[in-house]
């Protein structure tokens, strides 16, 4: 994200500028700032900057405290919400998440304990098939939680509400279209029912209040533990007009991996959908030519799925074999 860069650059300059009260803002979310702020005064999301602003201005300090509990709850864009519109429901959800937790790892480590509603899919232990004693790899003690962040309820704050309400105005049955809204790390994700996706993206692109002209990426995710919704396609949309980014997520079962293509609306999604098909096997109905883009045409399987073997590709030279890494370090 580009907006993360300017705040880091001039920390020295800011100490001088912090004397001007109008330029110091409440602590923003990490890397999420109003444009004017990032170019002119550049308040930073890092720890040092927030403490410094607290020292200088007590009034700002209070406001920043009120905003602090949700890290990343303030969206970027032209209209930053004031403290009053901050939704209580959101602040109540994760009160323990400290604003001081700047490191991403720290944040992640806390999420499991502080967000009770986060949906835990799976807890993975070890790596590369290493189990029990005799583990010389050092990966045996690894524990990783696979989880979805908790859904958010409106009001979300800032332009997020404007976008959500505008969608509601344009699509009367929008609660059927958008099944879940997730705000995580200062970014908003709309979970969309697959049959409504083409209609929704058409509105998102064409409506003057939305204007998400650019689909920067279509990605795939495979959650084998998410039964009935194993395959997810994630669309990253950007509005050049309003300088906003949103994300759409569509989930389909592995047994019926069909999603309607958005190429008619976003021609740039052409190759992205081909790649998502190539790597995950999601079939985009209505795509002009859905063929593999990276792998050879006759390649079996979709390599980025979780059940695809790690390595173990036959070398086909005089019987040479290399076992996949998850079978290589097995001692039992």
């Amino acid at each position, binding site marked *: 994200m580009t907006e993360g860069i300017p705040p880091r650059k001039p920390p020295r300059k800011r100490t001088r500028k912090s004397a001007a009260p109008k330029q110091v803002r409440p602590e923003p979310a990490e890397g999420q700032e109003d444009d004017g702020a990032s170019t002119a005064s550049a308040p930073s999301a890092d720890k040092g900057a927030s403490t410094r602003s607290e020292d200088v201005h007590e009034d700002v300090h209070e406001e920043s405290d009120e905003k602090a509990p949700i890290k990343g709850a303030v969206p970027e864009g032209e209209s930053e919400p004031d403290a009053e519109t901050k939704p209580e429901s959101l602040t109540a959800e994760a009160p323990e998440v400290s604003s001081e937790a700047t490191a991403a790892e720290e944040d992640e480590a806390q999420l499991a304990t502080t967000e009770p509603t986060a949906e835990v899919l799976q807890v993975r232990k070890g790596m590369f098939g290493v189990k029990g004693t005799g583990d010389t790899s050092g990966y045996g003690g690894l524990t990783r939680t696979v989880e979805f962040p908790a859904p958010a309820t409106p009001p979300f704050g800032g332009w997020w509400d404007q976008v959500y309400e505008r969608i509601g105005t344009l699509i009367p049955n929008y609660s059927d279209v958008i099944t879940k809204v997730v705000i995580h790390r200062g970014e908003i994700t709309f979970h969309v029912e697959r049959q409504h996706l083409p209609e929704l993206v058409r509105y998102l692109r064409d409506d003057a209040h939305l204007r998400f002209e650019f689909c920067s990426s279509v990605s795939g995710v495979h959650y084998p533990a998410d039964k009935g919704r194993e395959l997810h396609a994630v669309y990253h949309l950007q509005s050049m007009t309003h300088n906003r980014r949103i994300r759409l997520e569509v989930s389909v079962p592995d047994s019926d991996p069909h999603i309607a293509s958005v190429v008619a609306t976003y021609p740039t999604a052409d190759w992205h959908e081909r790649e998502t098909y190539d790597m995950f096997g999601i079939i985009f109905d209505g795509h002009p030519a859905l063929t593999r883009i*990276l*792998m*050879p045409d006759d*390649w079996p399987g979709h*390599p980025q799925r979780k059940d*695809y073997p*790690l*390595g*173990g*590709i*036959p*070398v*086909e*030279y*005089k*019987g*040479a074999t*290399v076992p*996949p890494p998850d079978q290589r370090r097995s001692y039992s």
Partner: protein
Amino acid sequence: MGLEEKLPSGVLLTTIENLFGYMRSAAFWPATFGLACCAIEMMTYGAPRYDSGRWGQEVFRASPRQADLMIVAGRVSQKMAPVLRQIYDQMPNPKWVLAMGVCASTGGMFNNYAIVQGVDHIVPVDMYLPGCPPRPEMLIDAMFKLRDKVRHTPIGLDAIEAAQDQEQRQLEAPSLIEQKGLLR
């Protein structure tokens, strides 16, 4: 006994084939073409410290149509494989291929879906050079072994015969994928 005994001193006899090989082995034109970290070692090989110009090989041709040696320096991805094959096809005969490094030879550490497990799947390889990446010295060694091979390349009728011979042998032999237990 033969003609040799009747020769005046200072005259050397050889075959055209031998002379041809002698000339040819001293005039390699490698294609400019690197795929990964091995290419850095290949550049060092051409640079002053190792100086492939010592045996007249410092000029890497930017066009495959002027090259007769392809140094596959680095891992070949599935996406790159047809490109590499096209470069090979554009090179005029006679031509040679040197698989530089383990990745080009066998896929190396990239035993995954993205990488071709040995460039011999797509082009015939004359010389395999192990190492990850091999030092320029090793490339020099491989190059001299390849020069030796080129020196003894048959020409004319012999070349046709040799090609037929090789084809016959390859038709009779099991394919590489069927050969087991030969790697040590």
